[in-house]
């Protein structure tokens, strides 16, 4: 007589990552602050900054001109500040022992981190589509071809992979979600403002111009403007990609190493 023994449960990287992606998206959707930053915050920025500063930044050109000029930055700010939510929930999960619990189960070791990164990208895509949709109602237009328009959406997602590497590297080492987000918040504000996203380079004071020139947020916003409206693409595109690759190369391994250590230490 033979007894049917069920095959041992096996970890599948793809399946487990998809499950973790879904779980992270659910956490985001049920966490009002995270949803607010991904959905409402960039749209409010676009609406309110255009209404208040539009004709001051671009005098005589109308609000529509500022929407076309400023939209990339406000979309990027939505993406940038949303990664804080990914970081905060990761720190909370690690403190609660969620990832240690997963370790005792037949779950692929890479899935928890990969799932969080995939969920981060999907949420970012949602933010970009939403900001562009509102922008189009306000007068935002693409004057380029389909390839450039696809690039307009893909480039910020690629850059966000670098940002989320940095945020996760910090999140796996943070003692509390609050200290993590308040520290990174200030840094993200600095690079968002000291950029050419809201005013042109010539309108910044002399000391801020070199910072704004090399700032990845400036490069990304300029590349997105070019991808939407045309112009010389090489410098902002290569600059953005260089930042993304650099951030991933430096902080990706740091995030993985810190995550392994933290999960093993169970705190």
């Amino acid at each position, binding site marked *: 007589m033979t007894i049917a023994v069920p095959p041992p449960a096996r970890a599948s990287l793809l399946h487990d990552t998809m499950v973790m992606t879904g779980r992270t998206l659910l956490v985001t959707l049920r*966490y*009002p*602050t995270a949803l*607010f930053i991904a959905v*409402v*915050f960039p749209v*409010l920025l676009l609406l*309110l*900054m255009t*209404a*208040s*500063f*539009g*004709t*001051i*930044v671009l*005098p005589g050109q109308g*609000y529509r001109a500022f929407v076309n000029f400023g939209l990339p930055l406000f979309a990027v700010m939505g993406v940038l500040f949303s990664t804080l939510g990914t970081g905060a929930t990761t720190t909370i999960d690690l403190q609660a022992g969620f990832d240690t619990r997963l370790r005792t189960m037949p779950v692929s070791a890479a899935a928890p981190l990969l799932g969080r990164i995939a969920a981060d990208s999907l949420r970012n895509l949602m933010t970009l589509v939403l900001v562009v949709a509102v922008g189009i109602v306000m007068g935002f237009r693409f004057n380029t071809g389909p390839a450039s328009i696809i690039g307009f959406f893909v480039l910020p997602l690629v850059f966000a992979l670098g940002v989320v590497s940095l945020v996760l590297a910090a999140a796996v080492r943070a003692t*509390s979600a*609050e*200290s993590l*987000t*308040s*520290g990174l*918040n*200030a840094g993200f*504000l*600095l690079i968002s*403002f*000291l950029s050419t996203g*809201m*005013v042109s380079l010539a*309108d*910044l*004071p002399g000391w*801020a111009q070199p910072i704004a020139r090399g700032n990845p947020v400036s490069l990304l916003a300029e590349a997105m403007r070019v991808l939407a409206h045309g112009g010389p693409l090489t410098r902002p595109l290569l600059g953005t990609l260089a930042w993304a690759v650099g951030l991933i190369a430096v902080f990706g391994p740091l995030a993985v190493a810190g995550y392994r250590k933290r999960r093993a230490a169970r705190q």
Partner: protein
Amino acid sequence: MSLDSTVLAGRHLRLMSRRPASIMGAVILPLLFALLFFTVFGKVMDRAGIDYIFYLLPAIIIQATFFTAMSSAQLAAEDVTGGTLRRLRVMPIRRTAPVFGLLWAEVTRAALSIGALVPASVALGFRFRGGLLASAGFILASLAFAAVLCTCFIAMGLTLRRVEAVQGASNLIYFPALLLSNAFAPAWAFPSWLRPVVEHQPVSRVADAIRALADTDVGLTRPLLIATTWLAGLLVVGLGFATRAIGRAA
């Protein structure tokens, strides 16, 4: 200010000093916003004929006051859900002491923000153009705004109770109230259909009064009267809701 309130204010100030986000919100973020707004928009505002650091300081004070008010709403909600209010209710203290204690602590925090912002703005080129009395009025009016705004936000925190709901509501009030006002950019820059709202809403009216107190050779009576009326009205509404909510929460 009763002794009970003072003791509870001390408790809140100790709690705040142990929260990194609270110190960030009270001092570091306002300083950062002052520097960033001045850096990014100084030149374009100059082109539009506005001395931006003079225009900006009241805006940043109002923004910092919003940060303080948002923190007061959250602390109030935490005291309801955490059971602190119920615990205090069974003790021989005044029933309103928890509200006034929190209010007193938050106004102290607002004073700290102003104390950091004024010297930093002077370093960036801000000058009080009026006399000593008007300048003292500038600080007092800012603190009065802080007291009223915190009362309203504490009432909101006590009413909504859930911390997440309070954070969401705070953000939904903060962005439009601040950015659809003349705090950061003058009303004439807004689209004409929005201008009436921007000019008459309370944050703009308070900004008008505070700016008039820092300025010279401008009429003070009208802006001060309008701002005082708004603040008095908001205070009555805030106190009404707070009293109602504390009866239910405890």
